[in-house]
C-alpha cells in the first residue's frame, strides 16, 4: 500500500507540529540518552517534540497522573539502585578466588528478613495511598456546568456528539479551555480506548450491553478540564482490528469564544441552518443504497453564495445525489446519514481518515477513490468497489474532484 502520512504542520497555534531540530540521528541518540532524566518529570516543558507524550500534562486529570507517576518513578529508582548496588557488591566482593573456599553456612537471619519485608512494605504503602486518592479524585464527575460530549468509537474512527449544542462531528474533538468536560464513552462495534495522552489517561470505549427497559445502561466516562489551548494528538489504545493503528484523532482546545464560533459555524456553514439542538429525522433521511435521495437541491442551491466556485457547486450536487449521503451527513443539507463520519465543517479539519493524513485535495481525492487501499477494512466503499454494506459509489474521476472541492469548501 502506498500510504504516505502527511502530518498537519503546526495547525492553528503550531503545537501539533514536530520540532525540526531532532531529525538527525545524532540528536536523537542524545535525546535517547537523556530520556531517563526526562522521565523524571523534567519533560513537562518541551511539549512539542513528542506530540503524544504521556508525561506532558495539559489538564488537571493528566496533572494528577503525572505527579503520581513522578513519585513512583523515584521510589522505583531508589529500589533499583539498592538492588543493583547490592548485586554489584556481591558480584565483585564474593567472586570465587580458589576452589577450596568454604564460606560460612548461613541459613538466614530473622531480623534482616523482617527488615526487607517491612522496608518494601512501607514503600508500597507510600505508593498505594496517593494512588487510591488519585483513583477517587480522577473518577468523580465534575461540576454541573461541565460540557458533555458523547464519544462513539467505530472501526476505525471517532464520532463526537455534543447533546447541549446539537452538534455532531468526527475525528476532531473541539473543546473550550478551562471548562470541565465529561466524555461519555460508548462503542458501536468492538472495544476501543480513548487516549489523548496530554489530556490524561485512557479509558476503554466499550460496546454497552443492552439492558431491560427501565434499567440504565452503564457507560464509561472521562472527566477533565483542559488548561491550555492547542491541538492535541490521540489515538485508539485498545486493539480494535485491522486498522487499529490508523485510528487517530485530534483534540482542538480553543478559547470559549473560539469554541462558540466553531459551534455557530457548524450550523451556518452550509445553507439554512436547522435550529440548534434539532435532531434530523433519521428515518426519513437515511438513504438506502441505490435509491435516489430526496433531492431538495433547488432550495439549497438558492441559499448558496452566487460567487461560489462552480466546481464546489457541481461537487455539492454530485455529493447530495450520490450514495455518499446514505452514511455521511452535512448539516443544513439533505445529507443526513449517520453511519459514517459527519462531514460538516470538513474543510476545517486538519486531518483526514481519522487523523492519519493531512486533509488536502490530493489526499481527499485518493481517499474517495480508494479508501480501503489507504486504510484496510474501512467500511467506506471506493469508486469501484463496495464497502461495508454499500455498493461502489461509481463516481467518475471528475465527480470525485468536484466532491473533494465541495467537501474542502465546508469551513
Amino acid at each position: 500500500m502506498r500510504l504516505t502520512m502527511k502530518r498537519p504542520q503546526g495547525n492553528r497555534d503550531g503545537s501539533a507540529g514536530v520540532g525540526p531540530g531532532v531529525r538527525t540521528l545524532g540528536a536523537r541518540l542524545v535525546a535517547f540518552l537523556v530520556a531517563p532524566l526526562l522521565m523524571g518529570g523534567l519533560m513537562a516543558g518541551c511539549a512539542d517534540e513528542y506530540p503524544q507524550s504521556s508525561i506532558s500534562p495539559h489538564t488537571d486529570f493528566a496533572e494528577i497522573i503525572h505527579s503520581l507517576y513522578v513519585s513512583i518513578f523515584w521510589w522505583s529508582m531508589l529500589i533499583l539502585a539498592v538492588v543493583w548496588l547490592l548485586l554489584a557488591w556481591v558480584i565483585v566482593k564474593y567472586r570465587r578466588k580458589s576452589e577450596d573456599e568454604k564460606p560460612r553456612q548461613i541459613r538466614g537471619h530473622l531480623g534482616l528478613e523482617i527488615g526487607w519485608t517491612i522496608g518494601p512494605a512501607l514503600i508500597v504503602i507510600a505508593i498505594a495511598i496517593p494512588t487510591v486518592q488519585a483513583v477517587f479524585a480522577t473518577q468523580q464527575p465534575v461540576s454541573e456546568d461541565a460540557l458533555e460530549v458523547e464519544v462513539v468509537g467505530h472501526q476505525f474512527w471517532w464520532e463526537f456528539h455534543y447533546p447541549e449544542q446539537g452538534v455532531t462531528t468526527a475525528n476532531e474533538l473541539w473543546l473550550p479551555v478551562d471548562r470541565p468536560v465529561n466524555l461519555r464513552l460508548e462503542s458501536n462495534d468492538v472495544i476501543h480506548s480513548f487516549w489523548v495522552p496530554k489530556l490524561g489517561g485512557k479509558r476503554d470505549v466499550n460496546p454497552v450491553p443492552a439492558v431491560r427497559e427501565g434499567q440504565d445502561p452503564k457507560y464509561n466516562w472521562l472527566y477533565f478540564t483542559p488548561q491550555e489551548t492547542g491541538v492535541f494528538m490521540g489515538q485508539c489504545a485498545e486493539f480494535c482490528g485491522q486498522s487499529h493503528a490508523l485510528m487517530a484523532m485530534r483534540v482542538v482546545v480553543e478559547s470559549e469564544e473560539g469554541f462558540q464560533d466553531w459551534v455557530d459555524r457548524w450550523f451556518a456553514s452550509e445553507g439554512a441552518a436547522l435550529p440548534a439542538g434539532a435532531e434530523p429525522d433519521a428515518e426519513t433521511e437515511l438513504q438506502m443504497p441505490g435509491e435516489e435521495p430526496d433531492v431538495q437541491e433547488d432550495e439549497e442551491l438558492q441559499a448558496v453564495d452566487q460567487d461560489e466556485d462552480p466546481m464546489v457547486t457541481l461537487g455539492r450536487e454530485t455529493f447530495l445525489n450520490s450514495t455518499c449521503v446514505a452514511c455521511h451527513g452535512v448539516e443544513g443539507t439533505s445529507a443526513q446519514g449517520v453511519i459514517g463520519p459527519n462531514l460538516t465543517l470538513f474543510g476545517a479539519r486538519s486531518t483526514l481518515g481519522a487523523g492519519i493524513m493531512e486533509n488536502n485535495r490530493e489526499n481527499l481525492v485518493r481517499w474517495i477513490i480508494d479508501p480501503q487501499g489507504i486504510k484496510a477494512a474501512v467500511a467506506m466503499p471506493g469508486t469501484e468497489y463496495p464497502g461495508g454494506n454499500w455498493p461502489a459509489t461509481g463516481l467518475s474521476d471528475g465527480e470525485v474532484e468536484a466532491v473533494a472541492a465541495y467537501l474542502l469548501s465546508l469551513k
Partner: protein
Amino acid sequence: MAQAAAAVDDHGHTTTGISNFKVGFWTFIASECLFFGTLISTYMVYKGRAVVGPYPAEIFDVLITTISTTVLLFSSLAMVLALHAVQLGKKKHAIMWLLAVIAMGGIFLGMEFNSYLKYIDYGLTLGSSTFGSSYYVLTGTHKVHVVLGMVWMAVLIWLIARNRIPPAKAEQVEIAGLYWHFVDIIWIVIFTLVYLIQ
C-alpha cells in the same frame, strides 16, 4: 486408567499412604471445582440482566426439579452401597447397586431433558438471552458430567461381571464414587443457587 493406578499402587508405598490415583483424582476434582465455579459465577453475574424473557421465575418449576434432585441424591446412596458391596466381594449386589445408580442418573437426565423441552417452548434458547446462554451451558455441562459418570458405571459393571474388580481393587469403584458424589454436590449447589434463590 483405573488399572494403571492400581498397578502403580501395587508397587508400593507412597509418601502419604494414600494411593496416587486417589490423590490425583482429588486434584482433578479441585480443578473441576474451579471449572464449575466459573460456570456458576457467570450465571450469577448475569442473573437479572436478561434483556428479554422468559425470565427464571416465569419458567422454573421448583417442584419438578426438587424431585429430580432427590433422585440424583439417592443415586449417591446407591453408589455408597455399591462400593460397600464391592469391598465385601458381593458381586451381584455391587452390580445391582451400580445399575441403580445408572437408572437414577437416567431418570434425572430424563426429567431435566423434559424441562429443557418445556423451556424451549417458552422461548428460552441458547441465544435468546444471557439467562438462556448461561443457564443451558451451566446445566448442560453438568449433564455431560452425569452422562460420563453413567458410562463409567457401565464399564465398572462390565469389569465386575468379569471378576476384574476383587475387593482388593475396590478403590477403582471408590474413585468412581468420588466422581459421582462430586457431580451430585455440584448439582446441589446449582439447585440452590439457580432454582431456590431466584
